């Protein structure tokens, strides 16, 4: 992954371009298979396992990891933490791309993708949590798009439109937090209807709360993680403010993440007590559950705290990766690993390689588009014409 390829005089065949191109070609072939042979041709989904990797990873993980947008914008615009301002644009961009890709990925998974607007224009099943998820994701994608537009508008030099959008910042931010609260939690609430299928250690009446709180962890950690990568690959695109504020952002977000992880750990324990599930901790699923909450919740909380105390940026950056993996693990546990735990192993689901390839394909598209945008638009720097104008 090198952005050197952007300059015209260099060859197109950089390692990044070759790998990305390869994945995109494979993905395109599988896309054709999916829309000619149906889900059976490319997935291991079955009547017992109607949701697989494309829901577990592309939807649940995708939405959680795209939470950086609402977390950062609310910190800066609502909680008044102005010193994190330079982190807003990259976070909004990642959020916008994340959600756009989630919606894109859904087109592969659902049977008739062109009917995705049906719940809003034909017939609304308002008793469904999925309706809420759909409505909020659709609206929030619009909000993120609007929040993101100042960057392309500056790039295109459309000052008047930009000024209008910037005036709406506060309203958009509040709207974004409301929508994020709703759909992040609703993704967890989707599983409330299936207590007989989800393992009791993961099934809890608090599922919506868990999903919402852990999305904040995901958002904070993704901002740190992504800024680490961006500094590695796009440092030359960053202005003084961005570079000088970065350490503060990392430390501040790590501190917040440490606290939220601690709170999340506590409510997870409360959940076990509430459902009186202590006796299950000794089972094999119990051990797996302990791996999740000790290794991917308690440990990152502790490591973040140590990192902040010692101002150890390297430790914080690695911890952010650990926390992100923890979120991925949690979402996969709820949707795939602890779901249908009652079925014999022969009837359990394991993704087909083509499902994994499509997920990779979608992530790759995200990275390519991200790179296209940050190398052209004012994301990591302030546009000279609009300095101190936000």
């Amino acid at each position: 992954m090198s952005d050197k390829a952007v300059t015209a005089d260099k060859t197109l065949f950089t390692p990044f371009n070759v790998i990305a191109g390869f994945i995109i070609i494979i993905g395109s072939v599988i896309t054709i298979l999916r829309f000619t042979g149906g889900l059976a041709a490319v997935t291991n989904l079955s009547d017992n396992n109607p949701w697989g990797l494309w829901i577990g990873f592309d939807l649940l993980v995708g939405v959680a990891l795209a939470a950086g947008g609402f977390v950062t914008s609310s910190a800066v615009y609502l909680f008044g933490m102005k010193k994190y301002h330079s982190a807003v644009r990259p976070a909004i961009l990642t959020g916008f791309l994340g959600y756009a890709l989630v919606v894109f990925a859904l087109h592969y998974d659902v049977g008739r993708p062109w009917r995705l607007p049906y719940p809003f224009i034909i017939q609304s099943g308002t008793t469904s949590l999925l309706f809420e998820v759909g409505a909020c994701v659709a609206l929030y994608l619009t909000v993120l798009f609007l929040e993101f537009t100042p960057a392309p508008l500056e790039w295109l030099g459309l000052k008047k439109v930009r000024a209008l959008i910037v005036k709406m910042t506060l309203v958009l931010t509040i709207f974004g937090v409301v929508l994020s609260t709703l759909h992040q939690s609703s993704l967890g609430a989707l599983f409330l209807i299936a207590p007989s299928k989800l393992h009791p250690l993961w099934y809890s009446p608090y599922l919506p709360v868990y999903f919402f709180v852990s999305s904040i962890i995901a958002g904070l950690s993704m901002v740190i993680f992504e800024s680490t990568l961006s500094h590695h690959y796009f440092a030359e695109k960053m202005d003084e403010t961005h570079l000088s504020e970065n350490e503060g952002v990392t430390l501040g977000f790590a501190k917040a993440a440490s606290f939220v992880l601690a709170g999340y750990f506590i409510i997870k324990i409360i959940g076990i007590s509430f459902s009186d599930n202590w006796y299950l901790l000794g089972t094999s699923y119990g051990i797996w559950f302990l791996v999740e909450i000790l290794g991917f919740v308690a440990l990152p909380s502790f490591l973040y705290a140590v990192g902040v105390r010692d101002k150890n940026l390297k430790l914080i950056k690695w911890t952010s990766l650990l926390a992100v993996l923890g979120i991925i693990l949690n979402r996969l546990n709820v949707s795939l690993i602890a779901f249908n735990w009652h079925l014999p192993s022969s009837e359990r689901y394991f993704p087909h390689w083509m499902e994994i390839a499509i997920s990779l394909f979608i992530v790759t598209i995200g990275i390519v588009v991200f790179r296209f945008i940050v190398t052209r638009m004012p994301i990591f720097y302030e546009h000279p014409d609009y300095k101190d104008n936000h």
Partner: protein
Amino acid sequence: MKSVKRGCYAKVSIRLLVEVLNMSISRRKFLGWIGAAGAGSAIGNTALAGGNKHFTGYPGSYAVLHDTLLCVGCRLCEAACNKVNELPAPDKPFTDLEVINKKRRTTAKTYTVVNKYESAGKKGPLFSKIQCNHCLEPACASACFVKAFKKTETGAVTYDSTVCVGCRYCMVACPFEIPAYEYDEPLTPRIMKCTMCYSRITKGQLPGCVEACPKEALTFGKRDDLLKISRARIRKYPDKYIDHVYGESEMGGTSWLYLSGVPFSEIGMREDLGVTPAPELTSGALAVVPMVVGLWPVLLTGIYAISKRKEKIAEQELNEAVQHATDEVKEKAEAKLAEALTKANKEKETAIEKAVKKALEEAAKSKAKEDS
């Protein structure tokens, strides 16, 4: 007038029911007959409900009772289902009874299957048929975000493929693992499941499987009647039947009822589903939505206002401090200046005085010199 008619039917029905319980006429025929009499003629439904809000099904809605003790695993119901629903031909013919040795579930090509079970307490195999249980408050209907599923007043849960998006949340939600999906359809996949032969029962016909059953292991009728029949059978043969009607209250109750001679878990049915109807499982989470929509903006604007005010106060304090500091410095400087001035003035004065004195002295001296 309608109520008179209904009462009349009820009386006739009760007498007939007594006869049915005496096994004097074919249960199936009888129930088919009263089914054809129309939806208003239920027994006991006139006195339906007490004060609670528990939904026990539409008044007079239909159901099917599956007495697993009577099932012989002949698969005629499977064949009939396939035929009346115009489903694709199976890989192996319905006459092949070997198929039944392997545990199966419903698929996109089969709305119903009969499975075989061995029980330690019983000699000989046991059979049980599975299909959509037509919940009183269906999980699939609650979970569907386009309302493709509908619990009709007949009791049947129907599905409308013309609005279905194909998200398969109904399959996730269904506690009985019934809805199947046409995974090999690239662009027009449907959810496939038993419809209780909705189009047949509205025409007064029996569901295909019920009609085909040679052993009367399946009985179609009003749900309330079937519950009474079930209890009567259990009462009559307490040694043969488990004292439980599966489906009476499972997941809030279903329109498919089961009787068994062994614990239901031994014939592949889950006993841990509870009695909470599926919609209740998510109603709490849904109820929070309007609260978040109503309160979050207030809370967030409040936080914004507080942080803004803090900022303003901080700025004010800063300004004041700066002002104060400058004032102090100014004052000090002025004082110093004044002091310096007075000092300078004093010095000046003394210098002048001195100079005057000196001049006077010199003048006096020169005068003295001149004088002398």
